[in-house]
C-alpha cells in the first residue's frame, strides 16, 4: 500500500512539475556557459549601422532569434494536444506566408523602390493565406482521418515551391527601411522588435486560454475523443481549428522571418524549424501523443532550444552539424520519458526505497 502511495506521489509530483524539465535544461545550459565563458551573459548597449542604440549580447540573441520558434511552439502545442500528431509543414508554410508578404509589398515588380501596399495589409493577407493552408492540413487530418504527419507531408513537399511560384522564382527585395523594423529594431528602441511581437503572441494566447474554453476542449478531445463526443463536443472541428490557429502562428513567424532580411530565400528560410518546434513541445514535457498540455512549458522549451543552438554556435559548431547534437538531446529525452523505461526506473526506485524504509522501521 505504501508503495502504491509512493508511486502515486511520485507520478503526481512529476506531473505537477512539468516545467521541471525545461527549467533544469535551461539551468544546465546556463551553468555550462557560466563555467566555459562568463562573458556569455554580458549585455552591452551599442549602436547599429543606422546609429540607433541597440542592446547586444548572446542573451539578447537568444531572446531575439527564439521568437519565431516560440510563436510556432504555441500552435504546435495545440495541434499536438488535439490530434496527437505534429505538423511538419510549418517551415514550408512560413516560406509561403513570407512570400505572400513580399508579393503584396512589392507588387509585380520584385525590386520596387516603394511599398505597393501598407505593411498591415500585407500581413493580413499572409495571415489569411497561412490559415487557408492550415485549414487544408486540418481537413485532411480531421475529416479524412489521415495521420497528421503524413497529411502535412503534402504541404511540406510543395510549400517551398508554391512560395517560389508567387515570385516567378525571383528574389524580391523590399527597399523601404520601415519594413525591416519588424524583424530588427524600431529606431530608438534598443530591444529587438520580434521580442515584442512574441510577447504580444504570448499575451493573446494566454488571454484566449483564459477567456475561452479552448484549452479544456482541446485537452478533452486529445485525451479521450469518445468522451468528448458524448459531452457534446465536435472533435473534428476542434482538431481542424487547431490547425487553423497554427496557420496564424505560422503567418506571424513568417512575417518576422522575412522582415529580418527584407527578402526571402525559398529553400533556406525557416529550414528545419518544424523539427525544432516539435522538439520544443516535447522538451516542455508535453506528450507527443496528445492530451494534456502546458503552454508555458512549450514556450520555455523553445527558448531552451534557441539557447542550445546559440551556445553551440558560440563554440564554433558548424550550423549544419547542429542537428547531430540536437538529435542526441531528443533521443535522451524520449528514452527517459518512454513508458517502458519509466516502468523499469520506477521499479528500480521502489527497490532502492524499500531497504531505506526497512532501515527506518
Amino acid at each position: 500500500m505504501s508503495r502504491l502511495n509512493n508511486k502515486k506521489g511520485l507520478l503526481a509530483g512529476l506531473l505537477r512539475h512539468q516545467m521541471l524539465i525545461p527549467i533544469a535544461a535551461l539551468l544546465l545550459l546556463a551553468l555550462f556557459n557560466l563555467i566555459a565563458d562568463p562573458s556569455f551573459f554580458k549585455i552591452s548597449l551599442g549602436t547599429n549601422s543606422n546609429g540607433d542604440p541597440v542592446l547586444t549580447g548572446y542573451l539578447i540573441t537568444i531572446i531575439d532569434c527564439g521568437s519565431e520558434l516560440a510563436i510556432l511552439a504555441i500552435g504546435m502545442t495545440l495541434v499536438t494536444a488535439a490530434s496527437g500528431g505534429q505538423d511538419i509543414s510549418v517551415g514550408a508554410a512560413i516560406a509561403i506566408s513570407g512570400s505572400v508578404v513580399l508579393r503584396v509589398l512589392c507588387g509585380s515588380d520584385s525590386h520596387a523602390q516603394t511599398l505597393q501596399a501598407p505593411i498591415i495589409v500585407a500581413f493580413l493577407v499572409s495571415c489569411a493565406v497561412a490559415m487557408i493552408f492550415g485549414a487544408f492540413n486540418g481537413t485532411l487530418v480531421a475529416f479524412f482521418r489521415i495521420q497528421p504527419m503524413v497529411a502535412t507531408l503534402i504541404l511540406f513537399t510543395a510549400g517551398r515551391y508554391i512560395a517560389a511560384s508567387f515570385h516567378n522564382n525571383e528574389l524580391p527585395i523590399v527597399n523601404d527601411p520601415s519594413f525591416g523594423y519588424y524583424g530588427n529594431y524600431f529606431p530608438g528602441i534598443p530591444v529587438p522588435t520580434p521580442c515584442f511581437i512574441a510577447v504580444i503572441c504570448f499575451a493573446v494566447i494566454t488571454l484566449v486560454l483564459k477567456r475561452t474554453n479552448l484549452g479544456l476542449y482541446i485537452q478533452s478531445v486529445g485525451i479521450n475523443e469518445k468522451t468528448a463526443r458524448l459531452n457534446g463536443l465536435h472533435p473534428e472541428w476542434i482538431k481542424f481549428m487547431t490547425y487553423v490557429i497554427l496557420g496564424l502562428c505560422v503567418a506571424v513567424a513568417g512575417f518576422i522571418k522575412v522582415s529580418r532580411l527584407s527578402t526571402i530565400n525559398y529553400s533556406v528560410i525557416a529550414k528545419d524549424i518544424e523539427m525544432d518546434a516539435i522538439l520544443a513541445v516535447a522538451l516542455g514535457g508535453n506528450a507527443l501523443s496528445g492530451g494534456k498540455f502546458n503552454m508555458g512549458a512549450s514556450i520555455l522549451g523553445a527558448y531552451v532550444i534557441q539557447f542550445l543552438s546559440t551556445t553551440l554556435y558560440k563554440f564554433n559548431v558548424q550550423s549544419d552539424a547542429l542537428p547531430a547534437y540536437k538529435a542526441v538531446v531528443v533521443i535522451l529525452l524520449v528514452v527517459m520519458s518512454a513508458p517502458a523505461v519509466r516502468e523499469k526506473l520506477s521499479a528500480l526506485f521502489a527497490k532502492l526505497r524499500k531497504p531505506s524504509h526497512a532501515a527506518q522501521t
Partner: protein
Amino acid sequence: MREGSVLEMTGIYKSFPGVKALQNVSFRLCEGEIHALMGENGAGKSTLIKVLTGVYPKDDGEIYLKGQQGAVKIHSPQDAQRVGISTVYQEISLCPNLSVAENIYLGRGEGQTVSWRKMNEGAAKLLSSLGIDVKPTKQLASCSIAVQQMIAIARAVDMDCRVLILDEPTSSLDESEVAKLFKMMRDLKKRGVGIIFVTHFLDQVYEVCDKITVLRDGKLVGEYQIEDMPRVMLVSKMLGKELDDMAEIKNDIPVCDQKDSTPVYEAEGLCSSEGIQPFDFYIRRGEVNGFTGLLGSGRSESVRAIFGADKVTSGTVKMNGKPVNITKPIDAMRNGIAYLPEDRKRDGIVGDLSVRDNIILALQVITGFFKPFSKAKATEFAEEYIRLLDIKTASVNTPIKSLSGGNQQKVILGRWLLTHPKYLILDEPTRGIDVGTKVEIQKLVLKLASEGMSVTFISSETDEMLRTCSRLIVMRDRKQVGELTGEQLTQNTIMSTIAGGGNDEQAE
C-alpha cells in the same frame, strides 16, 4: 491433476489497478466435455481466459494440463498454442488485411516458407468440411463479421488442440451458423477435446453444455452439472441472489401517479445504427424506470439512441409534448438530457484532466465556448459536488484517473447533475464499484426522482433495479419483450422474462 481432467486451474488471482478481477478462482475441465463459463459483465470470465491464454500474466495460482509435468507456464499466446490451447476471442482477433487462408494458417507450423497452393487447398478443404461458404483467397476484411467469426473458429478447430476456448463466439452468428458451430463442438467433444464455452445466451448453454461454472465479481460461485441447474437458478446465481430471497424484496416506491401528464420524454419508432429494433419509449416527471436484460440484449444501445450517442436512423422524439430533434449528444444536452455511459473508462472519464475539469466539462460545453467559468467558480462547482456526493479525492486538482472506480463514477455523476438535467440516464452506474457506493447511488436516484427528475436506470443487478425502478422494460435479442410494473416487479418474473421460453415451470 485428477483423473479425466484435461485442464485444471487453481487459486488464480489477477488484479488491475483499482480492480480485483479474479480472486482465488479455480476451474476444472474434463476430457470430452463442453463446459459453460457463465457470469454477468465484469464477473471475470474474459480475464480468466486471457490469463489462461497468456495474454495477461497472472498474479498467483497454478495451471495444470494433461500430459505436462507440473504447472505449465504460459507467457504468451504462442505458448498457449504450443501446449494445445486454442482460442476464439470475443473480439475477432484476425488480421483484416490478409486472406482467409492466411488467417487460418498464420503463426502455425514448421519451416520458414509459405506454400500458397497448399495453404489455399488446405483452407478450402477445412472450410467446406465445416460448411463455411467463403473463398480461401478472399481478403478477410471483405467478409462479413459472422463469416470472420466462423473463420476464427475454423482456425481454432484445425489446430490440434486439447483445450478449445470459445469466448462469446455466437453473438454475431445467426441460427444456422450457430447450428454448424454446435455440430462442430459435438464432433470435437467425441474426439476428447475439452471445450470452454462462454456465452450470454441461456438457450445455447442448455443446448450443448455438460457443466456450468459460474463466476461473480471475480470470484468462483460454483461448478454445476447442467441437469441440476434450472434456468432461473442459473440466472439467480449469476446475478447473486438466492432463490429464497427473491420473493422477499418488496419495492415500496410509489408508482408514478401522474398517468395523464405529458411525458417528459417520449420517443416513437426510435432506431439507431447499432442494430436495435425500433422501439417506443416514454418517461414521466419524477419517474424512475429501467431497461433490463442480459448483456448484449440492446439495453445500452437503446439509451444511446435516446441520447443521440449513436447515429439515430429513424424515429420521432417529443419532450414535454413538443417535438425536438436529437441527433447529436449536444442536442440532447441542450434539451436537458444527461447520460452516464456504461463504459466509464472508454466513454466517461477524461483521464488526465483534474476532477474539477471533469465535473464542469458538460456544463461548460452547454454554456458555450466563449463563457468559461473562472477558476474560482469551477472550483466552487466541483467542491459542491464533491461534498454532495462525498467524492474521496485529495483535491480538485487531482487527475481523475488516480481515483478509485467508485469515485470516478461519482465525479461523472456530478458532471451530469451539475447540468441540472430534466431527464437523467444512468447506464450501469454501479458496475465495478464497492457496495457502499452502490447503495449511495441508489439512494441518490430516489432522492432526485422525488425532486422531480426523471431517471432511467440500467443495471445488471436486478435487486438494484427493483429497489429503484417503478417500471421495467425487459429486452432480449435487441428487442423489447416486455414491460413490468407494480405487482409484476419481482425477481422471479423479471428473470423468467429475461430467460424467455421453456422455464415457466421453474419460476412457479
